């Protein structure tokens, strides 16, 4: 599988990382190196093998579905790059 520039551009878009057009050839080439390395996995016979979900066979703990936390709006917003009137502020989302 070889990744071309348009695939690299699509992946960058999906990852929400801006990549300038002139950086795409190098990016595609790096992807191909890494994916070429990963291709080795095709040599392994995985028929009938379950994909690993959890490395230790433990059931995830459950807890009561109740509120355990909250009422700390100031702390939640303390590290926001732009917080106004008790909210996170972002550029216009809807025209």
């Amino acid at each position, binding site marked *: 599988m070889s990744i071309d520039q348009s695939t690299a551009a699509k992946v960058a878009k999906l990852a929400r990382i801006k990549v300038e057009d002139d950086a795409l050839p190098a990016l595609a080439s*790096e992807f191909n190196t890494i994916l070429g390395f990963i291709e080795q996995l095709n040599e392994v016979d995985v028929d009938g093998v379950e994909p690993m*979900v959890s490395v230790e066979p433990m059931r995830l703990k459950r807890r009561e579905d109740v509120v355990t936390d909250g009422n700390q709006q100031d702390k939640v917003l303390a*590290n926001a790059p732009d917080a106004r009137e008790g909210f996170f502020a972002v550029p216009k989302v809807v025209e």
Partner: protein
Amino acid sequence: MSDLNKLGLAEARDALRKGDVTSVELTESCLKAIDEADALNAFVHKTPEIALERAKAADARIKAGDAPSMCGLPIGIKDLFCTKGVSSQAASKILEGFRPEYESTVSQQLADAGAVMLGKLNMDEFAMGSSNETSVYGNAVSPWRRGNDDAQLTPGGSSGGSASAVSADLCLAATGTDTGGSIRQPAAFVGITGIKPTYGRCSRWGIVAFASSLDQAGPMTKNVRDAAIMLETMCGHDPKDSTSAELAVPNFEAMLTGDVKGKKIGIPKEYRMDGMPAEIEKLWSDGAEMLKAAGAEIVDISLPHTKYALPAYYVIAPAEASSNLARYDGVRYGRRAHLAQGDGITEMYEKTRAEGFGPEVQRRVMIGTYVLSAGFYDAYYNRARKVRTLIKKDFEDVFAAGVDAILTPATPSASFGLGEMTEADPVQMYLNDVFTVTVNLAGLPGVSVPAGLDKQGLPLGLQLIGRPWDEGELLNTAYALETAAGFVAKPGKWW
């Protein structure tokens, strides 16, 4: 007493209890060493006020009696751990200015036990790297040099600042984290001990996530006894981490008898790689001889899927990273890019992430995005998870056959020069983790023990891999190896 910063945890603890030193004296000695070591770029956020305040509290607690082992001992904390009110950036530009409103469970447990935080330690950005060259703070530098050559060497990665700081005696010990070898490889590069416990032993809560199914915290220390002491404080069930194990934590230090008689130590043939330096080959067979002389039985074993561990890792870890790092959106914390007139929310995400993530992090996030994308999920991600099942089964089979621990080299080479790998393709750098990454994929405990020097005078380490939840026995075997190897070399001070 002079040079208090050069003490290990156990020595310092015993001196504190006898009243020979105070925590304030220990802490001041470390703070002075840190201020003289800016050339190593190990401590990237210094917290002397917090340190002295905690040291005073620890002295009062020790005086009152009944202080836990870690009480009063000055340590460094990797920048990946969230520390309340103190910059916690995962060495990334995207978390510039982030001061958490909470404390990670592991650093809280250490603080509760009375440990003194000296500051935050350098690392690869988001723990992605093997040389500490992807950090926004710049490279951490190893205190070791090749003889009289003044070329700067890597302390390894991702816990490079922790490795450099402990090796250079800037602190008594440090926390690290290990996703593919990030505790054990740097420990080996600088001649210290580092253990990654079984997945689930240490809570991941409050540690910036890289690959959640692989990440584990652990101690990086001057010797095996210190690792046992510090690991015990770091471990334990935490309801805030759903994968945290509800198991009692043994007194690991009490298990260090040095008796390995009758233990079966496996030597996996697949770890004998083409082109492995003769010195590492020799170190490995010497290590096996030492354990044999101590009464262990050495057996040849096979872990047939070893070769596929790194490629599987480079699907699974980036996939989890792409998901975990989606949270860095420039909205809730950290740094937002400056936007142009008319930029909307998509431009904000894209510019923030392009400016905030370094090249290696961007590369891994995008590889992860690709292997999870529609049409490739099965071919890459599911296949890698199936291979992971087989890698774990390899280990289960040898443990079922009676093997108690597995001995391997920790790294395929000694430390290399900073900048020497710049021209290499990313896969060349990934090969650093070839001996350590299997352990993360199988969730097992692994410890790196310094065992010798190469011909350039640089440390080399051996790795021991144990059964799940068997850190106590693993540390005991490591203790026997440490005693036999008698590694005492220290870097000459040039900084």
